[in-house]
């Protein structure tokens, strides 16, 4: 049948563009050779294979385009990037502008702080400087909580995760609010991995990460959904998970040691692109 949208474009140009993040360990980040790697990248390459097969192409060039929290959505919308492979939270607001494929990870919003500053709950942050990455749902949750609970937190917006973490490291901010999995990898990769603690208290329920694509492009979404569903439900899905979360990962040979939780298992068994955290609850 007649191809439309992204599939047509991929067929016409013989190329697909993947947007990657440079410091979302272990989802999408740069290795020692400055090549983007990670859990989401691996998934995306599977999607690329599926697209190639679907379009019956001999060759499909993969172009890589860096994105940041702030640029990823416009770049999907304006056609610069076809798939955004990172750690983007799937939520209802975003679905007004972009579409998501099946969820590849679930994580809650927490904060990391220095052990020495003895901060345990969200209320402990009262009146302090707290940083988060601009353009993320986390900073939104932080400002919401700040307003709702009247905490008087001084919210600082950093350009990216590493810069935000650096603010905690250099005592500019007492805490960094982010998805807990990213906090774990940042703390693990820091100069003093044991000096940091991630809060128990969460700003949100575990929320889904999804790979972004343009909305209103059903044929393309169908191919992508198909590819991800096939991956997640097969044993390969779990193997991929272990590769990035249970084993040493480049470049420094860090091991995050985050076993697959129950929600995660459920989301792999029954792939879903729902933005609603409750859809994944046990």
């Amino acid at each position, binding site marked *: 049948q007649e191809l439309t949208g992204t599939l047509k474009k991929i067929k016409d140009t013989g190329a697909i563009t993947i947007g990657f993040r440079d410091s979302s360990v272990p989802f999408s980040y740069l290795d020692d050779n400055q090549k983007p790697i990670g859990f989401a990248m691996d998934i995306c390459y599977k999607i690329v294979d599926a697209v190639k097969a679907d379009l019956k192409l001999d060759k499909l060039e993969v172009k890589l385009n860096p*994105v940041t929290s702030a640029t990823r959505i416009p770049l999907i919308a304006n056609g610069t990037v076809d798939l955004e492979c990172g750690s983007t939270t799937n939520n209802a607001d975003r679905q007004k502008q972009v579409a998501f494929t099946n969820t590849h990870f679930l994580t809650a919003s927490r904060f990391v702080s220095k052990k020495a500053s003895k901060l345990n709950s969200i209320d402990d942050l009262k009146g302090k400087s707290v940083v988060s990455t601009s353009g993320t749902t986390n900073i939104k949750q932080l400002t919401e909580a700040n307003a709702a609970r009247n905490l008087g937190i001084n919210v600082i917006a950093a350009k990216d995760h590493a*810069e935000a973490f650096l603010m905690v490291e250099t005592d500019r901010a007492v805490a960094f609010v982010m998805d807990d999995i990213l906090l774990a990898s940042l703390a693990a990769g820091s100069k003093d991995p044991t000096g940091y603690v991630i809060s128990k208290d969460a700003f949100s329920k575990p929320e889904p990460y999804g790979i972004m694509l343009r909305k209103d492009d059903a044929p393309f979404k169908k191919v992508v959904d198909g590819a991800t569903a096939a991956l997640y439900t097969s044993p390969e899905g779990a193997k991929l998970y272990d590769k990035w979360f249970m084993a040493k990962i480049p470049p420094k040979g860090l091991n995050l040691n985050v076993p697959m939780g129950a929600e995660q298992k459920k989301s792999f068994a029954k792939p879903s692109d729902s933005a609603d955290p409750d859809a994944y609850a046990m």
Partner: protein
Amino acid sequence: MFSDFDFNVIWRSLPYLFEQGMTFTLTLTVIATIGGLILGTFVALMRLSSNVALSTFAASYVNLMRSLPLVLVIFLFYFLMPYIGQWIMRADQPVQVGAYSSTIITFTLFEAAYFSEIMRAGIQSIPRGQVMAGYAIGLNYREVMRHVVLPQAFRNMLPVIFTQTIVLFQDTSLVYVLSITDFLGAASKVAQRDGRLTEMYLFAAVVYFTICFTASFFVKRLQKRISIIR
């Protein structure tokens, strides 16, 4: 503080910093300078033309560009470019414009506004008598521009043009906000991956300083040389 400085990280990432980052930075600088200069000269001529529509258009363009922060323009164009491409090429989808081409176009268009002001000043600094003398020996408008005014304007403005190029070279660091791998982008990527921001930013500062200082030193020498020829 300096005791736990990790100079090794700089050493290890040198090839990446220069082969990728600096190459992009320099390419962007060179292309935007040449493109901006050519475009800017035309804009300047338009602005000085007696055709009101042309000069108004040129003036608005220059004023628009010069009123906006480059960071904003970088964001805006990065997102807008594909739609503009689609509109120009009447494509049925936004045209894919990569980060690389997008920044090059953005900088060229942006710098054209600044270069046009330089060229306009250059053209206006040529005494009216020179133009008169050109006409008086029978040259027409194009010949007067081509053989009399522009060569002098360009030569007079060369130091200013180079100075603007140095500014441009520094401004390319702003593409960092798009996570594009220019020199600063490369440095910050290494910095963030290895948690070595202090070292990398200081190193970046040293590199930028060395390059710009050397360049402006030569610009000053050039200025002296040129002022002797005149």
